[in-house]
C-alpha cells in the first residue's frame, strides 16, 4: 500500500469506529421524550463528564487554530492557556444550584432557567437568539477545520467543501440517532485518544525538526527575539497591546462558563459532586493544550509556508516524511476534535432554538415526540446554515468567533443574578442583557468609539451589571422564596 492509502485507511477506520460507538447507546434503550434526548436522563458519571468536557475544549480551534496562532502570532496564543486556568471556576458554585433547580423544574437549557425565575418570555427569546447566532460561526469553524485536514491529506484532491460536507454528514447521523448519550460516549473515546496523541506528536515533531523541544525554542528565540513572549502579534503582524491581551483573557474567563453548551452540563450531570469534581479537574486540561502550542511553534522556522496559518499542522505533517500511520492518527484526531465539538454545538443550538425560542418564548406547545422531531429538524437547519457560512465566508472566521464571545459573556450577570441574587427582577435582567448586548455590538462595529483598546465584551459586561442592579432596585421583586429553597445557599 502506498503512503496516502495508509493515511486514508487509518482515518476511515477511525471514523467508522466513531460512528459505531456513537450509535451504540441507542440500542440500550432510554427515554424517548425530549428531556431524555437532550439531557441524557441526568445519568452521566464523573469519567464520562471529564472526557466530554475535555473533548469539547479539544475543538478544531485547539487542534488547528491554536497551533495556527502560535505559528503566526507567537505569545498571543498563550491567552488560550491563561483563560482556561480560571474560566470554569464560577461553575463550581453556579453548576450545583442550577442542577438542583433543573431536577425540580425539568430544565435542560440555561435560558429556560433564567426565563422561568422571572417568568419572562422576552428573556428566553433574546437568550435563544444570541445563543444560536453565536453557535453558527463556531460550528462553521469546526467544519472548515475538517475541510482543511482532508484537503491537506489528499493533496487537494478532496476539496475543502466536499471534505467538510462528508465529515459533517457523519456527525449529523449520530446526533440525530442518539442525542446526548451518543455525544457522551463518542466524546469519552475521542477525549482519551486526543489527549494521548497531542503529547505524542507535540514531542515528536520538534524532535524530528530541531532535535528536541528545548533546542527548538532556543533557535526561535535566536531568529525572532520577542516572538515567544506575550502579548505577541495581532492577526496583521503588528505587536498586540497588553490591554488587548489582558481584556481578551478576562472576558473569556468571565464568559466561558456561560457558553450554553457548557452550562447545559449542569443539567446532564449525575449529581452535584460530579459537577464540582469536573470543575476541580478542569485546569488539568491545560497540560494537554501545551503540546498543541509546541506543534504550532515547530512550524515557525520551517521553510515552506502554508497558504493560511490555520493549515500549519496538516501542512507540516504532509510535507515531512513522517510515518503515514502517525499522520493518519493525527488527522483522525483533528477530525475527531472538530466532530466532537461540532456535535455538542449543533445539539445545544437546536435544543435552545426549539425549547427557548419556539416553546418558551414563542408559546408553541408541541407533544413530547413532536418536540423531539422539531429539535432534529433544527439540528439539520443549523448544520446547513453553518455549512453555507463555512464554504462561502471569505474573511476570518476567528473574527466572527470573537464577535460571538462578547454576547455570550453578557449572559454572566443574568445567570448569576438568577441563581444568587434574591433582589433581582425580570425587568432588571432584561434591561441588563439588552444594554450589554447593544454596547458590545456597537463597539464591535465602531471600535474607534472605545475609550481604551479593551475587548468590547468587557464594556458591555460592566454596563450590563450596572443596569441590572439599578433597574432591579427600581422595580418590585417577586416572591422567590421557593426558588431559593430549591437552589440552596452555598453547598
Amino acid at each position, binding site marked *: 500500500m502506498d503512503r496516502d492509502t495508509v493515511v486514508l485507511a487509518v482515518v476511515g477506520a477511525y471514523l467508522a469506529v466513531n460512528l459505531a460507538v456513537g450509535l451504540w447507546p441507542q440500542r440500550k434503550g432510554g427515554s424517548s421524550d425530549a428531556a431524555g434526548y437532550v439531557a441524557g436522563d441526568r445519568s452521566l458519571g464523573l469519567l464520562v463528564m471529564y472526557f466530554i468536557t475535555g473533548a469539547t475544549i479539544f475543538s478544531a480551534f485547539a487542534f488547528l487554530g491554536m497551533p495556527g496562532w502560535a505559528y503566526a502570532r507567537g505569545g498571543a496564543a498563550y491567552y488560550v492557556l491563561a483563560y482556561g486556568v480560571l474560566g470554569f471556576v464560577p461553575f463550581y458554585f453556579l453548576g450545583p444550584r442550577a442542577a438542583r433547580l433543573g431536577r425540580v423544574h425539568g430544565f435542560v437549557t440555561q435560558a429556560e432557567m433564567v426565563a422561568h425565575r422571572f417568568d419572562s418570555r422576552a428573556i428566553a427569546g433574546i437568550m435563544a437568539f444570541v445563543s444560536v447566532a453565536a453557535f453558527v460561526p463556531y460550528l462553521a469553524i469546526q467544519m472548515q477545520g475538517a475541510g482543511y485536514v482532508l484537503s491537506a491529506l489528499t493533496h487537494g484532491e478532496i476539496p475543502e467543501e466536499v471534505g467538510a460536507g462528508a465529515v459533517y454528514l457523519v456527525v449529523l447521523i449520530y446526533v440525530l440517532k442518539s442525542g446526548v448519550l451518543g455525544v457522551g460516549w463518542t466524546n469519552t473515546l475521542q477525549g482519551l485518544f486526543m489527549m494521548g496523541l497531542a503529547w505524542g506528536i507535540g514531542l515528536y515533531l520538534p524532535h524530528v525538526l530541531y532535535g528536541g523541544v528545548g533546542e527548538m525554542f532556543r533557535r526561535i528565540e535566536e531568529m525572532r527575539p520577542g516572538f515567544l513572549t506575550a502579548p505577541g502579534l495581532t492577526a496583521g503582524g503588528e505587536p498586540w497591546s497588553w490591554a488587548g491581551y489582558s481584556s481578551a483573557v478576562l472576558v473569556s474567563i468571565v464568559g466561558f462558563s456561560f457558553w450554553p453548551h457548557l452550562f447545559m452540563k449542569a443539567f446532564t450531570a449525575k449529581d452535584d459532586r460530579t459537577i464540582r469534581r469536573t470543575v476541580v479537574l478542569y485546569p488539568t486540561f*491545560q497540560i494537554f493544550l501545551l503540546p498543541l502550542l509546541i506543534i504550532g511553534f515547530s512550524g515557525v522556522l520551517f521553510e515552506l509556508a502554508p497558504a493560511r496559518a490555520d493549515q500549519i499542522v496538516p501542512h507540516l505533517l504532509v510535507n515531512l516524511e513522517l510515518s503515514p500511520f502517525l499522520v493518519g492518527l493525527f488527522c483522525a484526531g483533528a477530525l475527531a476534535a472538530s466532530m466532537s465539538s461540532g456535535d455538542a454545538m449543533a445539539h445545544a443550538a437546536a435544543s435552545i432554538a426549539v425549547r427557548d425560542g419556539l416553546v418558551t418564548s414563542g408559546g408553541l406547545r408541541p407533544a413530547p415526540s413532536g418536540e423531539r422531531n422539531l429539535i432534529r429538524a433544527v439540528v439539520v437547519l443549523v448544520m446547513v446554515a453553518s455549512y453555507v457560512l463555512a464554504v462561502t465566508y471569505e474573511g476570518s472566521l476567528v473574527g466572527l468567533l470573537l464577535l460571538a464571545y462578547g454576547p455570550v459573556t453578557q449572559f454572566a450577570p443574568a445567570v448569576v443574578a438568577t441563581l444568587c441574587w434574591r433582589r433581582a427582577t425580570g425587568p432588571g435582567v432584561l434591561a441588563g442583557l439588552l444594554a450589554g448586548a447593544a454596547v458590545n455590538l456597537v463597539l464591535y462595529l465602531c471600535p474607534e468609539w472605545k475609550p481604551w483598546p479593551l475587548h468590547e465584551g468587557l464594556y458591555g459586561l460592566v454596563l450590563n451589571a450596572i443596569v441590572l442592579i439599578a433597574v432591579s432596585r427600581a422595580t418590585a421583586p417577586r416572591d422567590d422564596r421557593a426558588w431559593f429553597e430549591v437552589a440552596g445557599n452555598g453547598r
Partner: protein
Amino acid sequence: MRRKDVALIAYVVVCALMLVWPGYALLGNRVRPFVLGIPLALLWNVAWAVATFLVLLAYDRAGARAERE
C-alpha cells in the same frame, strides 16, 4: 463568610492578576530561564493551571469535610 471562601477569593484575584497585565507582564513574561526546554512565559500559564487545580482540590476537600461534620 467562612475562612476558606475568603482564601479562595483571594487566590482567584491574585491568580487573575498573574495571568494578565501587570502580574504576568512584570514577573512571568520572559523567555529565559527555559524550564524543561520550555520558555518561562509559556510554562508560567501551565504552572498556574496546576496551582488552581491544587487550590480547588483543597477547597473541595474542606467543603466535603464540613458537610460530614
